[in-house]
């Protein structure tokens, strides 16, 4: 069964009218890289790639995570340990229960019979594999550029190759693939080949550089703009960018042109109390 049977390609999804969390059991889990694990749950959130869900650790906290896979009856979340909630989650075992709600937000477009390049930086790579699978199922040719600081932080590169994506690697220290940044690889590709669509998820400065590069060459580009998401469905206002648009609904995935109208894109984001934090 392909991913597009689970609803990808369905534009304008907002939230279900019921946003109570539902219980899901951790089916299995494994390490992807240092401090990065993938958790698998049986079921579906009917998501499209690039959307996110809220994961609830009962009596502890609830946080937003992008969805790394949602097809064939399984939901995969690839999660980096960054704070108390993810530290708590990393202590959990198969058979333990959590709450999930979603999917939320606007995801990546899926195109048929085109040449697509996906650029993932760090754990931003996770939702792009799901995106690539949807393109592939629609007959598109997928190139995946994966970047990390060094080899031990690379994720999803083997799955990318196994899925049949042309997979290109960049590491800052040269310990795997090309030494340097994903943007160097992309620049060369855009110069040498005819690319129909570029989609990216990762550090915002990287995405901004990619957005500028694609706009200059008139190549359609989508970026995933991550902001502090408290509720996930458009009520709290924590995730707005400087135009006032909510990234939990208008985003996280927006076109490069739209992202460039956000004066905070690639410059700053906001913390839990709305305070400015520079990238």
């Amino acid at each position, binding site marked *: 069964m392909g991913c597009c049977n689970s609803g990808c390609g369905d534009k304008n999804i907002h939230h279900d009218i019921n*946003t109570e969390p539902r219980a899901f059991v951790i089916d299995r889990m494994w390490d992807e890289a240092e401090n990065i694990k993938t958790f698998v749950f049986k079921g579906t959130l009917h998501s499209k790639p690039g959307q996110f869900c809220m994961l*609830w650790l009962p009596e502890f906290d609830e946080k937003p995570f992008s969805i790394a896979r949602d097809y064939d009856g399984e939901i995969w979340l690839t999660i980096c340990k960054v704070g108390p909630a993810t530290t708590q989650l990393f202590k959990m075992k198969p058979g333990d229960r959590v709450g999930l709600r979603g999917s939320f937000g606007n995801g990546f477009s899926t195109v048929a019979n085109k040449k697509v390049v996906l650029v993932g930086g760090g754990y931003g790579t996770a939702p792009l594999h799901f995106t690539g699978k949807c393109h592939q199922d629609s007959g598109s040719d997928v190139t995946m550029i994966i970047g990390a600081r060094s080899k031990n932080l690379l994720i999803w590169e083997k799955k990318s190759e196994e899925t049949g994506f042309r997979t290109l690697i960049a590491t800052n220290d040269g310990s795997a693939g090309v030494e340097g940044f994903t943007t160097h690889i992309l620049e060369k590709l855009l110069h040498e080949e005819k690319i129909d669509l570029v989609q990216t998820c990762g550090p915002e400065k990287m995405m901004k550089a990619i957005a500028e590069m694609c706009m200059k060459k008139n190549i359609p580009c989508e970026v995933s703009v991550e902001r502090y998401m408290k509720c996930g469905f458009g009520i709290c206002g924590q995730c707005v960018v400087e135009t006032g648009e909510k990234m939990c609904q208008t985003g996280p995935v927006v076109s490069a042109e739209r992202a460039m109208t956000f004066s905070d894109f690639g410059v700053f984001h906001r913390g839990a109390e709305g305070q400015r934090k520079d990238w």
Partner: protein
Amino acid sequence: MKNLNVAFCGVDFENPLVLASGVLGVTAASLAHVIELGAGGITTKSMWRDPHPGHPNPTMFGTKEYFMNAVGLSDAGLVKGVQTMKELRERTSAPIIANIVAGKVEDFGAIAESIGELKPDVVEVNISCPNVESEFGKPFACSRVDAANVTKLVRDNVGNIPISVKLSPNVESIVDIAQSVVDAGANAITAINTVGPGMRWNIDLRTPILSNKVGGVSGPAIFPIAVKSVYDIHKALPNTPIIATGGVNSGRDALEIMMAGGTLVGVGTAIYYHGDATWKKFTDEMSAWLEQSEFDNLSDIIGLFHKK
């Protein structure tokens, strides 16, 4: 074409729909965007003098019939509040209602003075949040004496800015509380805050859904309670304008609660159901109704049910 203008405490609003406090209120960009989408005015989230962390997630969820929240009035404190207010004033000329809160009666004076200096069009005093009960005991809106003391302190410290006191429906008589705050110097009443608190559990996880265990109930289910509260307050205090809020979920709901006695109409949870389209959808419905009615001005319908 007839317009939807209303005047509230001497302030002109292009239409009576105002963003209710606590929704989309974290940044000036967010609040100003609500005006661009068609709101007549906006209410800031509750501003504290000192930073206040609020509750961990989950803090809210919705169903078809109702919505529950226990955000816990998270706020970065006065420094951020002042900055947000200044930026908001630069971004919009629409009326700003500044909502203030404090944990102790005596702390309302200081926050009122600081916010008053920023010259919002109206100051709304939150004495009725059900989600901070465990921290501070019963909301001040549950006691005529506390409610009046808070009102007087704000009145004495805020300058000549009109004040509206936001009341709780979770009391024996909301009319008695309304009377006491008006006697203490309130120019207007905001009614109602959320109902409850209520409680919901997840049966598989055997855990209350909200981290605070309990939360205020809003949304369409509480609209009848809001209409009755507004009706009762207007009947007792016909010269006191009301910001009528609670479960308004259509333009027709807004018209109904104005006829019950509301001058402005607070809109919050409706955004969960209608998103960014809320404002235009509701004002279009109101305009269409007004066009075919015998009334020339929308303000003619305020308190209409009492004139029967």
